[in-house]
């Protein structure tokens, strides 16, 4: 029995109501993944590369959105974590002949351990101070990476050699050698990461994080182990960001420090806030804002600097008026527009002309 619509009195049409309750939240993401997989052969290589970047940065945004939206921890150093993940993955592909999936998994684990080791002391601070100390740590990591460079098959622990013509590119999985196949591969891995985070959010850790975000003393009184769950969130975010770094290493093949500029950490926070931190869809929107918009602007020949201005305005707008970001705002605005249109047509329908 569908409940009547509060305004019109008619039964509401809920097309997903026929499905069992566990399946409903899966439909829209599954459709998105299938559309992306099916559309990949139709796209030119420019858009395949752009969408691969969107996929990878969605996962990075997922990690930051988890920290900001679920636990209330703001990190300004996620791009440095991504760079760390890319470094580890590149080093592993040159050092071992493991399958790419295993390398991604190990990369995620190593990044998780490194991120948690860094986070352990930083988590003693919170709020503004945590954000600033992560900015400082990211700066330090960037300086180190500028000097060590990324592995390109050279000798030694760092695996970087200066004079080498025809760098061997970072190995891709055997089933995804071409850009198009790699895009599909990335979509599947990203979907797995989203599923992992979704599963966490929906179960015990998610409830603990929600309690911590509301009030730490209240969470403690309710028996939530704050230290464990904060570290858990930090570790999970580092893990997915590390996997994203591994995907990025395979995607671009040759890694350079300039691919991870400091400003990207700030842009990432901007797009995550704009996309929306209270919904996992926000991470998808954030990835698109960060990587699809620049590709579009380049395609149209518009200056890329406009994007910085747009993101700046977007951050101010989100913080002032729309804390839920686009993921919350857009459906609401669309619903409002729909109601408006329905209202207009209905008024005109009986008499033919509006009174």
């Amino acid at each position, binding site marked *: 029995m569908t409940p009547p619509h509060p305004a019109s009195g008619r039964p509401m049409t809920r097309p997903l109501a026929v499905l069992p309750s566990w399946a409903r939240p899966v439909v829209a993401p599954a459709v998105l993944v299938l559309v992306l997989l099916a559309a990949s052969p139709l796209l030119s290589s420019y858009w395949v590369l752009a969408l691969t970047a969107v996929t990878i940065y969605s996962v990075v945004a997922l990690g930051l959105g988890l920290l900001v939206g679920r636990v209330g921890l*703001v990190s300004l150093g996620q791009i440095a974590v991504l760079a760390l993940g890319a470094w580890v993955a590149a080093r592993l592909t040159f050092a071992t002949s493991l399958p790419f999936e295993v390398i991604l998994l190990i990369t995620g684990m190593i990044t998780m351990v490194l991120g948690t080791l860094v986070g*352990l*002391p*930083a*988590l*003693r*601070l*919170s*709020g*503004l*101070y*945590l*954000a*600033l*100390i992560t*900015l*400082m*740590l990211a*700066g*330090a990591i960037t*300086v*180190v990476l*500028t*000097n060590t460079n990324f592995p390109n098959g050279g000798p030694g622990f760092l695996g970087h050699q200066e004079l080498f013509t025809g760098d061997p590119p970072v190995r891709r999985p055997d089933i995804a050698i071409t850009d198009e196949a790699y895009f599909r591969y990335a979509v599947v891995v990203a979907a797995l990461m989203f599923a992992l985070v979704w599963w966490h959010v929906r179960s015990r850790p998610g409830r603990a994080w929600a309690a911590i975000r509301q009030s*730490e*003393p209240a969470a*403690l009184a309710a028996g939530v182990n*704050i*230290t464990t769950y*904060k*570290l858990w969130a930090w570790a999970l975010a580092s893990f997915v960001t590390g996997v994203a770094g591994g995907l990025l290493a395979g995607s671009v093949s040759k890694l350079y420090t300039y691919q991870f500029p*400091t*400003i990207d950490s*700030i*842009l990432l*926070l*901007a797009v995550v*806030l704009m996309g929306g931190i209270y919904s996992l869809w926000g991470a998808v929107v954030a990835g698109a804002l960060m990587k699809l918009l620049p590709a579009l602007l380049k395609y149209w020949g518009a*200056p890329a*600097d*406009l*994007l*910085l*201005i*747009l*993101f*700046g*305005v*977007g*951050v*101010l707008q989100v*913080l*002032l008026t729309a804390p839920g970001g686009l993921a919350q705002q857009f459906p609401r605005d669309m619903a409002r527009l729909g109601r408006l249109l329905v209202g207009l047509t209905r008024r005109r329908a009986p008499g033919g002309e509006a009174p």
Partner: protein
Amino acid sequence: MPNWQDFQPFIVSGLALGGVYSLSGVGMVVLYRTTGVLNLAFGAIGGMGAFIAWSLINNLEWPEVLAYLVCVGFGAVISLAYGRLFGPPLAGRDPLVKAAATLGLALILLGAMSWIWSDKARSMRLPTSRWRYQVGEVLINWTQIIALALGVIVTVATAAFLRRTGLGTAMRALASDREITATLGVPVRRVEAATWLVSGALAGASGLLLSSLVGLDAATLTFLVISSLAATLIARLRSLTVTLVAGLVIGLVNALITPFFDLAPYRNMTPFVLATVALLFLARHQQISFARRYQ
């Protein structure tokens, strides 16, 4: 091991840069204490001012002094405008939200700078950089002296201002509690506006000095704020004296590492490492379960 001779020129350049870090650090701390806003757009405001001054001098052929005043004035005006527009609606929010909002301003300014002035490389040279003289083996120019002196003078003057004047007292009261101060009849918005204005002027002055000491580049000027931020963090966004000392130490250490060839590539880590160590040291008694918010 490099000898004493190698260090001398770097002492001068390090102290000059440290002076600017202190100058902008003091501007940021005063603004944070009074309004609760950590202005992360500090570097971008100064950078934009410096670019405008460059255009006035080289394209419109204004007298240099006037252009420099415009640079400082631009900083003051843009900072005041931001404070008037976005200060009140965000006043009750978490300091983190206020700081994130200034990131929005920083992005807008950075985008505008790279859009308008990205066509070619530019350089700004204050006339004071041409007046130089020799002390021992080292060439010192007046820009460096001004940078160091301004850092020290502004710190001392601000501290005295906060202690001795009525406006300073109101600012200190605001730093303690905004609501109670408002109840006592202090015109909160006007005091905050004055703080935004002064802090913006300091941003303009720092931008001008940095563009001459470091270079006229949008991204560099915007992100040099991180070094000043390190100084303010070591001072826990509280003490002006510690900000001054921390700024000078960061500038000095950063420069003095240069003669060590093995370490030199890593010298830009100085502010990050010093700030991280200081913060972690200050937080050593904190527990993760009750991480402090430092309002």
